[in-house]
């Protein structure tokens, strides 16, 4: 069992909808994994905070107003804004708060695809409209293609890019000393997963990335998912097995010539993971996306 304590930091915010699937807009839920490692839940994806002799390393920047509150929490607790931050992928709930950290002198890092995806005007086939680039204040300063490492005091944080997983620009962060892996949305805990096929994600890449995360971890490793509570590598394995089963069901249906529509109608994934909660997406959505992705001829 993971030894950790959680507390809630409320902050005043006159916001929009109170019940967002992305979490409370007016509070951060802080889980203390150790004196130097925090998981922070709030408006947006989970953030991971690791404090070292050479500064604080942050995974993901959340969404305003949580981003400001997250920065303030780190300053109050560790004495300075993060020295560096990695975006696990380009989705707004993990990266739109980058401006807060760029303005604080944080070295913002991401995979090259991520920056490319948000730095240029592009046509979205999904929403059938032009999407404007994000302002430079929200772009990462540093990008990498394959892998990189931070050697900060006694901590070593390896950042690597699993190909075509949740998106085409994912990063996973593995802190060896803290024994923590932040997975981004390659692994979400307790909700139906999203695989962003429109931005380079894939079923097979996700399954491969989950295997790699499992292999990197040991039984004591704290796995911080993109959304949901703390996990262990056993949770990652169980999650992967469900995705594998869904993949098998989808491939069988495609082989039988079952159409996407009929496949979604039969809701074949629900029985595989009845405990996963619907949020932005549900079992039927995922079944349709699997059918699309796995039905593509090589």
């Amino acid at each position, binding site marked *: 069992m993971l030894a950790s304590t959680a507390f809630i930091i409320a902050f005043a915010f006159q916001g929009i909808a109170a019940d967002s699937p992305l979490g409370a807009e007016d509070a951060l839920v802080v889980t203390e994994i150790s004196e130097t490692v925090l998981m922070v839940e709030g408006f947006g994806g989970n953030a991971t905070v690791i404090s070292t002799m*050479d500064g604080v390393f942050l995974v993901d920047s959340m969404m305003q107003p949580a981003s400001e509150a997250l920065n303030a929490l780190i300053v109050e607790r560790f004495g300075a804004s993060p*020295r*560096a931050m990695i975006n696990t992928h380009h989705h707004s709930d993990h990266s739109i708060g980058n401006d807060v950290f760029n303005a604080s002198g944080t*070295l913002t890092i991401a995979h*090259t695809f991520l*920056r490319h995806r948000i730095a240029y005007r592009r046509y979205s086939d999904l929403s059938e409209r032009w999407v404007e680039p994000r302002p430079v204040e929200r*772009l*990462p*300063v*540093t*990008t*990498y*293609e*394959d*892998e*990189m*490492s*931070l*050697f*900060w005091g006694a901590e070593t944080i390896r950042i690597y890019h699993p190909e075509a997983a949740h998106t085409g620009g994912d990063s996973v962060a593995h802190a060896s000393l803290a024994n923590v892996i932040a997975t981004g949305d390659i692994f979400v805990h307790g909700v139906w997963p999203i695989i962003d096929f429109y931005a380079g994600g894939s079923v097979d890449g996700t399954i491969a990335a989950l295997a790699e995360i499992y292999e990197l971890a040991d039984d004591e490793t704290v796995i911080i998912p993109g959304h949901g509570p703390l996990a262990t590598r056993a949770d990652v394995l169980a999650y992967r097995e469900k995705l594998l089963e869904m993949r098998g069901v989808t491939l069988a249906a495609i082989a039988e010539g079952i159409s996407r529509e009929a496949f979604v109608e039969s809701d074949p994934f629900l029985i595989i993971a009845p405990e996963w909660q619907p949020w932005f997406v549900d079992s039927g959505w995922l079944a349709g996306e699997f059918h699309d992705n796995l039905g593509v001829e090589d």
Partner: protein
Amino acid sequence: MKTLIIGASMLVFAASVHAQQRELTFEPTELRGGVVMLSTGAGGNIAYLDGADGILLVDDLLGGTGPLVEAAIADIAGEGVPRFILNTHYHGDHTGSNDHFHAEGSTIVAHHNIRTRLASSDDQSEYGFLPIMTFGADIHFHMNGETIRAFHVPAAHTDGDAIVYFEGADVLHMGDTLFSGIFPYIDVAGGGSVDGYLEAMEIGLQIARPDTQVIPGHGPLSTREDIQAAIEMLVASRAIIMPMVENGMTLEEVIAADPLAEFHDDWNWGFICTPRMVATLYFDAAGDTGTSPLATRCN
């Protein structure tokens, strides 16, 4: 940034370097896009870009020169502590001020193998010398309106070389994969190789256009023609020496035959004199990666 009068603005600092009194003269050359090359004649050429997003510095000279480098940059840019320092390789004439700038808050960035080599070195193994951010294939910085790409070229001058390209400015810092107009030092004991060295220069050629400003690790500001000339010299020299090694000649016999006489006048210099260039190619052809060409006497 202040306007520079190219070549005319000489910054002179006196300081103790390696425990002896020494004077360094920083000669700044303003390149395109606001990139500034600083040459001292002692240690590798360094270059920096400054702006609202901070200073990015490529290489940081000899041990003990940190305050001088900082002052030289500050004299032009107004502020002298870089946000990032990229090390092009591990040698002490390119990483000597890492400790100074680490203590000042700079983030030292380098290929993985630079950290490994420094960590096992005699005089630069202290924590501050070690890069705290390392990369494998490449790393890019998007700052001050510029895109700076550093990418690893394997087994070239050492096993941890990076070539740095300022994309918008079209300025290419080759590190020590280019000794411009002088015989190159290929540190085979440090993981370099003649093949990899040639490959690195070929990559430099692929990037460089006719107008690209090329900063060599050592030597004056250059162009792609200088890379081309260095490749031609090295290929020709290797073609001369390789059959001599295959014929079983000893190093002494090869040196005595003066096989690189045609290149001597143009390429010979104090550090890699002609006999050392011969030795470099001799050991490479013989598959001897354990003997340094620097063990060969120059006369």
